[in-house]
């Protein structure tokens, strides 16, 4: 019977045993709950080998693609090496470029470490070696880029963001863990309309997701909305314009809550503005990134406007209070 490897030790699994049962029998206790595939507490990841289809029933597309499965539903068909769901590796990269995108957002490009693979839209946890301070930043780059790109919003008195924006130098090395997150494009349904909406540096993952979908041959309309409190908070306008000019399925729209507006921008709350513009959202695949309260508001509004909860992928940014 196929063996199961976990944290460097290999365990045998009998014909009728699940991964969860086998490990339990060997005295290895994974987190678990209902043991019937409902609660998802025993969700783990296959890092070698392919989990059976039945063990992925009920998981969302991005998790399936990352070989997550439910240990309680998995009778392995081939040897599996598994890891806990949140395990991620540490990498080291070099700063190859730094530039300000607006008054408070800095773009940092890092060399891409060997062996690091990710899906556009996922995030990494940057680490300051001197005191192990860590913060999450979404990747704006895509797999085919030869660099990793993050957008750093400088938070007043924020320890990590001020260090990244003001002190970290070009050619300096920086460590990170990752990738993490399930807010990314999965191939299939190439004609499905996509709605990408974000605030502030929520544009970073959305820019990656849009490019990734286009590269994967997505043919359906892609509506990208970049929202900000005021026009000063917008950035990458010319990059978005260029991307939309090169790919007719893509439409990019800015949305500004108050004050001066760039030409063609929508005004007011982004959730209302999007629904007013697009109407019924039934059938859309939705990606939402940025400030948690706005992401939650959009999630709710877009669900009420017809998007299915199954088709809404959200990455709400948590901002750590300064101190």
């Amino acid at each position, binding site marked *: 019977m196929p063996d199961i490897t976990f944290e460097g030790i290999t365990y045998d699994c009998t014909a009728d045993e699940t991964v969860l049962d086998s490990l339990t029998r060997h005295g290895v206790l994974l987190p678990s709950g209902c043991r*019937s595939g*409902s609660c998802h507490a025993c969700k783990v990841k296959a890092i070698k080998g392919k989990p059976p289809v039945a063990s992925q029933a009920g998981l969302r597309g991005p998790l399936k693609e990352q070989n997550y499965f439910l240990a309680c539903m998995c009778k392995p068909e081939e040897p599996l090496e598994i890891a806990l769901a949140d395990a991620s590796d540490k990498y080291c990269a070099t700063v190859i470029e730094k530039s300000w995108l607006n008054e408070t957002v800095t773009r940092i490009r890092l060399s891409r470490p060997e062996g690091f693979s990710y899906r556009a839209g996922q995030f990494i946890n940057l680490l300051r070696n001197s005191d192990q301070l860590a913060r999450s930043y979404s990747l704006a780059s895509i797999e085919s880029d030869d660099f990793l790109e993050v957008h750093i919003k400088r938070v007043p008195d924020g320890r990590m963001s001020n260090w990244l924006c003001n002190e970290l130098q070009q050619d300096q090395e920086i460590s990170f863990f990752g990738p993490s997150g399930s807010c990314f494009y999965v191939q299939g349904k190439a004609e499905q309309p996509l709605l990408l909406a974000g605030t502030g540096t929520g544009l970073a993952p959305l820019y990656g997701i849009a490019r990734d979908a286009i590269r994967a041959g997505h043919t359906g309309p892609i509506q990208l909305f970049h929202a900000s409190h005021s026009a000063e908070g917008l950035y990458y306008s010319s990059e978005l314009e260029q991307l939309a000019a090169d790919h007719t399925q893509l439409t990019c729209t800015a949305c500004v809550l108050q004050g001066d507006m760039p030409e063609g921008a929508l005004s007011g709350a982004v959730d209302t503005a999007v629904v007013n513009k697009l109407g019924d959202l039934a059938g859309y695949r939705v990606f939402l990134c940025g400030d948690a309260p706005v992401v939650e508001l959009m999630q709710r509004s877009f669900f009420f406007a017809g998007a299915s909860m199954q088709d809404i992928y959200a990455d709400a940014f948590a901002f750590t209070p300064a101190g």
Partner: protein
Amino acid sequence: MTTLFEKIGGQASVNAAIDPFYRRVLGDPYVSRFFEGVDMVKQAEKQRTFLTMAFGGPHNYTGLDMRKGHKHLVHEMGLNGTHFDHILAHLRSTLAGLGVGEDLIAEVVAVAESTRADVLDL
């Protein structure tokens, strides 16, 4: 013998009911406050488990789980029988909206009703 879950159409019916049911619940100001500030995707998964159970499908939820999961809502937020009635009404309307017959609706509502004491920690 055909089970309730088979008669109602199995997992496909749960999938069809989940969005409309959740929209009705969130759109009802009388009960929506119990769902504020919770992760909507996780909450939708819980709705799936609830609907699967009410439809007579496979689940592993015990009365004790129901009791534990709602205890803070009962004792800190005032969840009571009237709120429970609202949820049952939304369940009923959701099924009617999907064209489920009266007999089956009654069976589903009876299963959901059987959790009342546990949910309300009575």
